[in-house]
């Protein structure tokens, strides 16, 4: 029931966000039509960081309580976070080309996101190379905790490294009300989408685990 509500809400809001981004919001004067990617780029970044924070807390709770439920939540959140941060890097690149003239710059936020991308890819590589469900969960939790603790330090060091460059201003004055409204709708929509995906995916992981347990018992009984 809860998931159905989340699904309905996120569907409606995502549809609404299409309308707002593509039709409702006025085109930005300096950057033109490509600026509209901003309304998806920012929520993608936000959800990625939220997802990794959930991985972090889920991992701590898993290590403390050792209930597979929390590992399911943490690993599901890591999957979603990885998808969102990849999309964020891609939309960022698409936007950067016309706005700054290059596909990539070593700007602090971009670089931090890239490092994070690698850390959470490593999260899945480690899980993939480990045998045993319980050990998978434990090792994943360790990477989830260490990786997230690193975020502020990565950001700080990259910022210091790039201070010689002028700060990049995306908008000199604040956001116009219609733009702000569009951004907010997108943010809320993506939040619902995230929680919907999270509950759906961790449910699936629960079922997968139960199924493999049943299979094991059956195999033992038949042997």
């Amino acid at each position, binding site marked *: 029931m809860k998931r159905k509500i989340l699904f309905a809400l996120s569907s409606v809001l995502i549809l609404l966000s299409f309308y707002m981004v593509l039709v409702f919001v006025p085109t930005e004067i300096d950057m033109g039509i490509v600026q509209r990617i901003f309304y998806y780029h920012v929520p993608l970044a936000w959800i990625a960081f939220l997802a990794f924070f959930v991985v972090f807390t889920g991992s701590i709770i898993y*290590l403390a309580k050792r209930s597979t439920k929390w590992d399911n939540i943490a690993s599901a959140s890591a999957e979603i976070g990885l998808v969102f941060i990849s999309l964020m890097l891609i939309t960022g690149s698409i936007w950067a080309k016309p706005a700054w003239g290059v596909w990539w710059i070593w700007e602090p936020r971009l670089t931090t996101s890239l490092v994070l991308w690698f850390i959470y890819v490593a999260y899945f590589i480690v899980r993939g*190379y480990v045998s045993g469900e319980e050990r998978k969960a434990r090792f994943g939790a360790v990477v989830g905790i260490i990786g997230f603790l690193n975020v502020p330090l990565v950001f700080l060091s990259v910022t*210091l490294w790039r201070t010689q460059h002028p700060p990049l201003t995306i908008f000199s004055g604040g956001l116009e009300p219609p733009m702000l409204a569009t951004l907010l709708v997108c943010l809320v929509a993506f939040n619902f989408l995230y929680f919907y995906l999270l509950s759906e995916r961790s449910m699936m992981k629960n079922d997968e685990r139960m199924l493999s347990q049943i299979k094991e018992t059956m195999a033992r009984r038949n042997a």
Partner: protein
Amino acid sequence: MKELRDAFTIASKDVLTEIRTREVLSSVVIFAVLVIIIFNFAFGSSEQAAGLVAPGILWVTFAFTGILSLNRSFILEKEEDCIEGLMVAPLSREAVYLGKFFGNVFFIILIQLIVIPIFSLLFNISFFNLELLLITILATLGFASVGTLFAAMAVNTRARELVLPILFFPVITPVIIAAVNASAQVLDGQSFGAIAQWLGVIGAFDVIFIVASYLIFSFIIEE
């Protein structure tokens, strides 16, 4: 207090093993010199180029050699099932971490002390000053803190040698950035004040990850 004593016992065991076998040190030093020479081929050896790329080459070399010796530190234990011995010994898991950490710090610094003179000889740059020593020691503490944790994890996966760098490099990004920039500023003849912010970044990394790894290590080698 007992924990520290235990840790030193483990570290001195590792040092003794190394003195008897001379397995790691000799090959890692040869490897380090090879890396430096390859970089020399890649970037040319003019004085101008050397000044520009030397700090980067130095730290890439240290990161690579660090990976090698970190990997060995647990593979040796695993090969003869010595890790089982460590686990049934009347030691806390934290003492095992600290012992391995001290051992790794010792080996990496020893390798650096051998590599730095060779490096300054080949690149014709004087590397002997107090600031650089301080940067090297602080950065090595950072390398070894997460490195020891990840090495213990990597040795329990199917692709041992592959997993460590994938985990290690993204996480030590702040240390690499700070160490390279601080070294460049030192070689540039800048004052201590200029590198203080970089030392701060490395110091913060050291504190956070020594504490975090110390607390989390027991979850990796249980069972």
